[in-house]
């Protein structure tokens, strides 16, 4: 199997190199066309923030140096420097690598679902550019199936691994419906934006935004279709809010225990969930009572992420087993497809030759043999033919299953040795 996977990832390459190797949308089409036209390969390029990989199939069985030179030239890098960062997988290893990547077993956050979509998108782009062929057209859809199988048959995708989604999980443990809920956003930190984005997906009834800077409050409120309120009215807002997202850059506590108790005395609403993801913290941690107030700070949310990742790691073994199984299945399937025509022609040729020889022999011995003798001779020649072909066919099948490039050489040898013509 003439298949190569060449690239770099967060495991082997610093971000400074990865970002220089990354392909923009325009560059992708251009690179795909060059790989297909100049080097004669089927090609798919997977370019994400954590990896850049080129999958090549068919074409001449070349060493990866030509591709390293291509990548270096394309991005204006030194080929020698680049070579030390690149990994190369060939044949079966390349198939397995793609399946592991698609199943998110090679990701920074194991089990994340984004990579399967990125693999699909890369393939679709290559398909649209016309740079895929029989092997990659079989390989990439199979990779999607592997990703789906791993996701559904193991718990590797369970739980949330981002702080913002973990925060929303906590909110869902307290509240059931959100149309009648008020979200209060305090501050305008970067992490707050992400969490607010997740909270907005719950479709809360009302969003209030407050900030020491009225201008920033208005900006954030405009972005989330909320209402900006003056910083001085924070206590009033806290009496109305059901979910509070605090992400200020304040060096000291904004809401002390005493201040909170005064707010609580004025509240008539149900429990309040406070997501204090500011560092240093904005709310006094002692206000968390697990009844009327549920306070979660950044460390609580990080603990969830760590525990989720630990739980996901427990599913790596079964997921790897699925990848291994699917790799074998793919190689068998590919061997059947690629060797099938050669084996069929070989068998047909031998069959025709055998019939001819047996026919001549029987006509020469005509009148001396009864039906049983004729059948015996016919069977003996069939057996001889099968035994003769068993060796080459088995060797070809084994070579194809191993995923090595030897199957290509063997097919060529068979064609020449037995004068097989298309």
């Amino acid at each position, binding site marked *: 199997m003439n298949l190569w996977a060449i690239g770099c990832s967060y495991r082997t390459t610093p971000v400074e190199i990865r970002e220089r190797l990354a392909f923009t949308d325009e560059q992708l089409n251009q690179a795909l066309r060059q790989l297909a036209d100049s080097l004669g390969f089927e090609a798919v390029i997977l370019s994400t923030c954590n990896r850049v990989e080129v999958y090549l199939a068919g074409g001449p069985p070349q060493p990866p140096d030509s591709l390293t030179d291509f990548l270096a030239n394309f991005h204006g890098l030194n080929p020698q420097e680049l070579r030390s960062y690149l990994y190369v997988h060939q044949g079966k290893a390349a198939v397995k690598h793609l399946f592991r990547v698609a199943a998110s077993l090679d990701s920074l956050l194991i089990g994340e679902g984004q990579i399967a979509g990125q693999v699909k998108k890369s393939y679709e782009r290559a398909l649209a550019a016309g740079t895929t062929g029989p092997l990659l057209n079989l390989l990439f859809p199979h990779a999607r199936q592997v990703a789906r199988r791993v996701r559904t048959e193991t*718990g590797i995708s369970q739980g949330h691994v981002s702080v913002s989604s973990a925060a929303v*999980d906590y909110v869902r*443990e307290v509240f059931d419906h959100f149309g009648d809920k008020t979200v209060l956003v305090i501050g305008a930190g970067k992490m707050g934006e992400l969490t607010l984005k997740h909270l907005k997906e719950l479709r809360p009834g009302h969003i209030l935004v407050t900030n020491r800077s009225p201008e920033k409050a208005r900006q954030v409120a405009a972005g989330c279709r909320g209402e900006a309120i003056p910083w001085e009215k924070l206590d009033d807002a806290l009496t109305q809010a059901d979910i509070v997202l605090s992400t200020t850059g304040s060096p000291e506590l904004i809401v002390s225990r005493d201040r909170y108790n005064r707010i609580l005395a004025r509240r*008539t609403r*149900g429990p309040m969930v406070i997501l204090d993801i500011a560092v240093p913290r904005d709310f006094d941690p002692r206000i*968390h009572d697990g*009844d009327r107030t549920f306070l979660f700070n950044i460390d*609580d949310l990080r603990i969830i992420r760590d525990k*989720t990742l630990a739980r996901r790691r427990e599913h790596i073994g079964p997921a790897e087993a699925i990848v291994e199984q699917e790799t074998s299945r793919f190689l068998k399937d590919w061997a059947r497809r690629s060797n099938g025509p050669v084996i069929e022609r070989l068998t047909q040729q031998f069959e025709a030759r055998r019939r001819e020889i047996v026919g001549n022999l029987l006509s020469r011995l005509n009148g001396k043999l009864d039906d049983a003798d004729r059948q015996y001779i016919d069977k003996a020649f069939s057996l001889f033919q099968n035994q003769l072909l068993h060796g080459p066919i088995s060797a070809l099948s084994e070579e194809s299953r191993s995923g090595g490039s030897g199957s290509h050489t063997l097919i060529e040898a068979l064609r020449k040795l037995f004068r097989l013509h298309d």
Partner: protein
Amino acid sequence: MNRITVLCFMASYVLALLLELLQLWLGRFYLRVLALIAGFAGLIAQTLYLYSRRPPLVWQFGWMLFMAWILAIFYLCGAVQHRRFSWGVFVLPLLLGLLALGLALGTPPPEARGLVQAELVSTDRFWIALHIGLILLATVSVCIAFLASVMYLFQSHRLRTKTPPGEGLRLLSLERLEDMNRQAIILAFPLLTAGILAGMALMLQGNRAVSWMDLRVLSTNSLWLVFALLLYLRYGYHLRGRQIAFLTIVAFVVLLCCLALTHPLPHPDRPQQEGRQGEANCPTSASIGRDERT
């Protein structure tokens, strides 16, 4: 059908509970499906048992069996609706507890059959059936309110200790559990009130003497008072969350005491109780069954 015993469906429910616990430990979904199948088998067996034996509701045994039967339906519906949550872990122990309590309080003699005494006149049969039906539904509602409260306290504890979502027991949100508790209490109170009123109507119709000191009357009225207090605290004082959950558990304990100590319905086979307590003040008294017999 006659070979079905209480132990048959209790065993099915125990198996369902064990499978639910195993599912909690191993996290395999098929275990929950098996638990549902076991629970369903138990419900079928219990239905056949109730149909063939017709244990009288005047015995605590019959009462507990009917309560458990309604709870079994509640378990199956809830387990299908809330597949991702640890529903059976809470409902099944209560169901089994009621069955065990029924057995512990004594089974009726084999000749005692029929939900309501057949020898009563038709008008009384209607009022007694109404009385029984309303109070039975009220007690089931109390059981559901109790379950919602226990789940609320578990969930609240998980959040207080900041247990990561999805770890260990998976429960409905606090808001949903509080709603369930509230609705069950709101339903239980009028049912209980209407049940008591139906009993009073029956008693007045029979022109019977009223004894407010009858233990059954006292317990039924005290249960009504506990629920009235619970509603007052919920809506008058705006008590919420854990406090209301604790009070609901107290109300459930009062209900259990009422059911275990005495039975709110007439009991023709207990003359010693009638002799000790005298004539009852409502149709829940033992005298109804005796007086109406021809």
